[in-house]
């Protein structure tokens, strides 16, 4: 069976909190996993008093070695888990903002090329 690295939602209503878990793909979301790799608190915390830049922050706890191991043996991260793992360099980022923008532009230009130019000359696609 496929192993997945995914999030399991805990916490109360309106205060989500996630365990980052390794589990079989077909088991229920909150069932007992093979291993709890860490946690992810999606609620941004206010900047710390000593923080000069004063940026809000989100807390992630993760066992990096175990995460690397599970990815190495073929566990498939979900999109969200991929995003978290890519932050620490375990995986290549799945989506990049520039990549998505490029795709949008491509689709845009493709759509325009289908429509035959009638009154105005075809607009040149802007390069992103």
């Amino acid at each position, binding site marked *: 069976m496929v192993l997945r690295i995914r999030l399991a939602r805990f916490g109360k209503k309106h205060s989500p909190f996630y365990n980052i878990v390794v589990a079989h793909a077909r088991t229920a979301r909150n069932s007992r996993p093979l291993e*709890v*790799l860490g946690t992810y608190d999606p609620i941004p915390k206010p900047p710390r008093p000593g923080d000069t830049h004063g940026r809000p922050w989100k807390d*992630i*706890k*993760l*066992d990096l070695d175990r995460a690397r191991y599970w990815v190495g043996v073929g566990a498939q991260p979900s999109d969200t888990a991929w995003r978290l793992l890519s932050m*620490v360099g375990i995986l290549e980022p799945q989506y990049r903002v520039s990549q998505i923008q490029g795709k949008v532009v491509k689709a845009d230009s493709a759509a325009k090329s289908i429509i035959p130019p009638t009154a105005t000359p075809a607009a040149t696609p802007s390069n992103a």
Partner: protein
Amino acid sequence: MPPCIRPSNVSSSIASCSSIRPRSIPQPARAARDFSQSSSRQITKRRRQFYQWLNGPGRALKEPLPGSTNYLGAYDRFGNLIRADNRYLTGRKKKEEAEEGEDEAASKSGQEADETDMTERRLDEAAENEDKKQEELKLPPESKEDLRPFPGNKYFQSQPVLSEDLREAIYQAMVDPVSPMSLPAASVHFGVSNERIGAVYRLKHMEKEWIAKGKTLAIPYRQAVMDMLPKTPYVSDKNKRPIPHEPINDLIVHPATRQQLFVPVAESRVFTRVDAGKAFDNNLLPADERIPHPEMVQVERDTLSGMSAAERFERAKERLLTQIKEKTEKEEAAKEAEKAALTRVPRRRWDFVIQNVSVESVGKNGRDHRGVGWRYGLPHEDRKKGQVKIPTSVEA
């Protein structure tokens, strides 16, 4: 009709008048409450005595004494203020008479508009004489007996609180832009314990913030309470020493030292206080280091060894500098370690702070409370009795 006595007059009139002269302020002696079912219609002897006391010797305690505490221990059994001397009593009497005169004048001026000038002039005169009167009306300072709220318990004394000026002075000394005083230094200088200095700093800081925000402060309330309490005054004279508020170098009783221990020690062995600390607990510091101000002991030792003042000062300064250096180094090292353990990934709206943990921390059965993540198969106990949700520390 009973004599109408203004509340401000009441306390003043008490000190002067001997309570033997019967004064009857009729207190409403309620026989029974409206809702009461019991038939306690008759006035008992105790109740009568109680109202007798309330109208006689006890009346002085109804209103606070201006500029002084007003405890039961300061009065004799006839309701006379024990420490009031003749000068004070005569001053009181004069003031009362003057006030009565003013009352009459005020009532007259209400009827006759011509006399307003007269009353104004009189008020001016009164303002001039104010200083003299204040001097006359000043009570001698309280003795220990005067600070007893419960005369039966002679060991209970009302303890002084920090006066408003002293608290302001402590805060100003600690935030001084040129040479700010550290917390232990302020504690030694003002004779106030470390904890209290910390509390004063935090509360003053908050007060300033509130003032800056334009919040309303309960100043009249503070004033009223402070007027009723004994205070440690602030000595603004730089050449004089501040009045110590409390003993600052008391040894805090550590829970590990509460047990009684019998440790047999060979006579040949040197058993110091360090060993005594270790006998209680291996991690327990000796008493010399657990006291709030170990540096004061060092200074005393230097004095005993016959060093000159300049030499002592030099050594104390050196010790302080090394201590500060060690502390900052330690803090910086801790900060560095924390930074190394955390990975910060800045994103558009917030940073992701990633902390490396170990999955082993849940233990073999996966139930250790130190483990990472939300527990499986364990109830969340946040609604259980005795769960403390109030933050126990302030991050500042």
